[in-house]
């Protein structure tokens, strides 16, 4: 089991689908954070949280991926990820295990994938019982920042 052939992803659920980000990007997962909304910000920005004195922007991943709004009983989970400029929080319905996958199971994103997902989903890995869709952390951060600039009226 050579490390170059195995990748580890922190998995999470969005709208019943399994997603993942590189485990190296993830700082921690937090539930029950008090989120301050930011009026006039783009809909992808869910708000701000206080992470031990540091203000972290919470990104609504469902909004980024054009998925329907979350309506669950349990509060969503903040997955704190490191990006180039600053840590961000990705909001997920539920956080899962760290999954180890083999590089040979990688499939690039299908060509039929449309819209924003093309840039944000790096590809998928086949698992025994389904797929894990891998998101590019930095791409999402860039996308959110770019859209925030555009959304300005």
């Amino acid at each position, binding site marked *: 089991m050579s490390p170059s052939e195995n990748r580890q992803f922190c998995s999470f659920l969005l709208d019943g689908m399994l997603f993942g980000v590189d485990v190296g990007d993830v700082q921690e997962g937090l539930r029950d954070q*008090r989120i*301050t*909304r*930011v*009026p*006039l*910000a*783009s809909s992808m*920005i869910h*708000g*701000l*949280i*206080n992470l*031990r*004195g*540091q*203000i*972290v*922007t919470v*990104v609504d991943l469902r909004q980024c991926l054009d998925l329907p709004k979350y309506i669950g009983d349990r509060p969503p989970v903040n997955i704190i990820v490191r990006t180039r*400029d*600053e840590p*961000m929080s990705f909001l997920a319905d539920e956080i899962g295990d760290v999954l180890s996958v083999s590089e040979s199971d990688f499939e690039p994103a299908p060509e039929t994938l449309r819209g924003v997902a093309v840039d944000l989903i790096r590809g998928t890995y086949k698992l025994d019982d389904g797929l894990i869709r891998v998101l590019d952390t930095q791409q999402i*951060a860039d996308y*959110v*920042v770019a859209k*925030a*600039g555009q959304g*300005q009226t």
Partner: protein
Amino acid sequence: MGELDDFVNDFLIETKEGLGQLENDLVALEENPQDADRLGSIFRILHTIKGSAGFLEFSTLRDISHSGEHLLGRIRNGEITLSPALSNSLFRLIDAIRELLASIEESGAEGDNSFVELKQQLGAADTKSETKVLAEPTEEKSREISEFQASDESCSDDTITVMAPADHAPDETGEFAQSDSEASGFSRDDITAMDDSKNGGYHSVQQAPEPEPPLVERLTKPPKPPLETSPPKSDSKISGSGSSASSVRVEVDLLNRLMNLVGELVLTRNRILQVTSGQQDPDILNTTQRLNQITSELQDGIMRTRMHPIGGMWQRMPRITRDVSRQCAKKVRLEIEGTETELDKSLIEGLTDPMLHLVRNAIDHGIESPNSRRLSGKPEEGRLTLRAFHEGGQVIIEIDDDGSGLDMDKIKHRAIQLGFISSEESLVMSADELQQSIFLPGFSTADQVSNVSGRGVGMDVVKTNIEQLGGVVSLKSTLGQGTVVRITVPLTLAIIPALVVTRSGDHYTIPQANVVELLRPDSVTFASNVERIHDAFVYRLRGKLLPLVELGNLLEVERPEKTMDESGAAASHLIVLRAGERHFALMVDRIIGTQEIVVKPLGVALETIGIYTGSTIMGDGSVSLILDVLGLGRRAGLFTRDEQEVIGEPESMADETLVVVERLLICEVGLNRRIGISIRSLTCVEHVARADIEYSVDEEVVQYRGGIMPLIRLSHFLMDESETNDSDSLYVVVHTAGDRHVGIVVDRVLDITDTPSGIERSADGNSPITGTAIVQDRVTDMIDPDRLIRIAGLFLPTTVGAEASQEN
């Protein structure tokens, strides 16, 4: 490798510091070439740089510092004197070292530039001035030489000192501990370099044998005297490095992290205090109290680590002053006061560029050429003072020159020329207002664009930069006497007092600096003072109409159809805010109170919204957004509409007795009678030819801006029929209400001043005089134009519409 990197890093930091000192010493030496202490200090710094560069194998850096050191050695020996060309070369050497340092910092290597030209200059200047020196009397020189012998340990022939570290050590003070031990490492190169320079020197020696004796003398002199005489010199150096030994360099990132953690600790403490407030156990109470105290002290201490004396930033100023004054062919003496004044590090960084600009400006535009200074009876040398001090929890920085000052006529002319103001406006503008107009974008009075400044992008950038730091910049200038630019900034940007408000359940904070006043009108007062103009609301406050915006609507957190009347009835917490020059009223659900907040930056994704300046953490650990008042105003459309339209609505003509008067136009009417009119409601002062006066019914009118403007003879209302102005034209002060103009005829316009404080109010409602005060030692009657118009019976509110349609 990592170790070497650390060395390089230390080297870079210390060398940069050394260069600052070097630069200042050189400027001082230029002023006073006989200053042996300065020369010694320059010498030592260059020597240290050379030594460290040699150790770290930066050969270009070593070589050029060597050339400089060599040159200085000759100066120190009295072989040559410091000519302007020579000092220029030395300054260029400093620049070259900086360049090399920058390159090392960036790429780890010195880069391709080997500064051959500079080395030649340092060498060439050497030979040239040497021949010149020949003409000078040898006696004086040899006296100088003997003076210099004392400190002389490593001049043109490094071999002596390099090979004798004991001789050399007291001077080095261990600032670069490695440089001594490494000295022998580069001495061989030095010898070759020395040989080269010696050869270069030798040619001149052949022509000029005189400079040679000192060298021989030095070689043969006993080694003892330098040891005895050098300690006084190294003393100052030692005390200098002694202070640096008691301080530690800390990464700003680490400090910021500590700040955050302390902030968290404060919050945790707050929670502990809450939890234990019901406890009776004295042990717990004592412990929490102690925790409370220590936390506060810790917070205080961490805050202080961010404070830096302003002197660090000013270290560059002597060099800049020197360079700029050279470029402009001016003589300038720089005075610096209050270098120990402390302010936040980030503020110092933000202030550097504006300061540099202002200093350049003062020398280029402010201080006159030596010639014209002499002609105007001033000393040839101009004075530029940089001053910093604390006042009222703020830091004041002044850039004060004794130059020509601002020429108001020139500024007025220029402002009109550039279309910033109309010629009418310029008449009613006070000198002060006019002076501030140099902060407008694109404004420059420089007749010619100079290399230094005068591209017209200066002062507005200065102003913007300083305002971004939460500061204010103002300017005071007296023609012929000089200009003072005053910058006021808060002590720190990290902690500011702010007002906490709520809207729709969210907390927002507003920087206290923007808050003018808080209002809590009851629903009846609110309803009677709020007015609707189409879709906009205004709030009447002491006779002034303020644009009224509702925070929920502005942030779109409330449905827009919810009107001001509905929400106003329920809650009317109003905050009068200052956005630039404008005031407006902001309505919120509740005003919680003022508190000191720690400003935290927003994430990159939120910076573009333009309505928040940052965020902060509240006592309960939640995040609160800091509102950008300028951004709020902009979003409310405050700057798209002309203020006149909002404030001058017909409502303001209603029976308001108390008018907020700010600045007064002082006019003369009749014989020696002075009146003052608030310039707030005035548009301009016009010259009207008597011949242009026409009559409509029984009113005097003139045609004005495509309409008819009735004239009011002020003298008729002051029971003083004698008009003393018998020239062909009248002074007409134009008062504007809505889209109507009324001309008030006065005999002379004298001045614009501030409203005096002691106005004796007059009770007579049928006189246009609202009060009397002493202005500029003269009794002056205050005139309310609105009341004057009412008494004159001109367009009463009911007939406004009718008259307007008749006219058009």
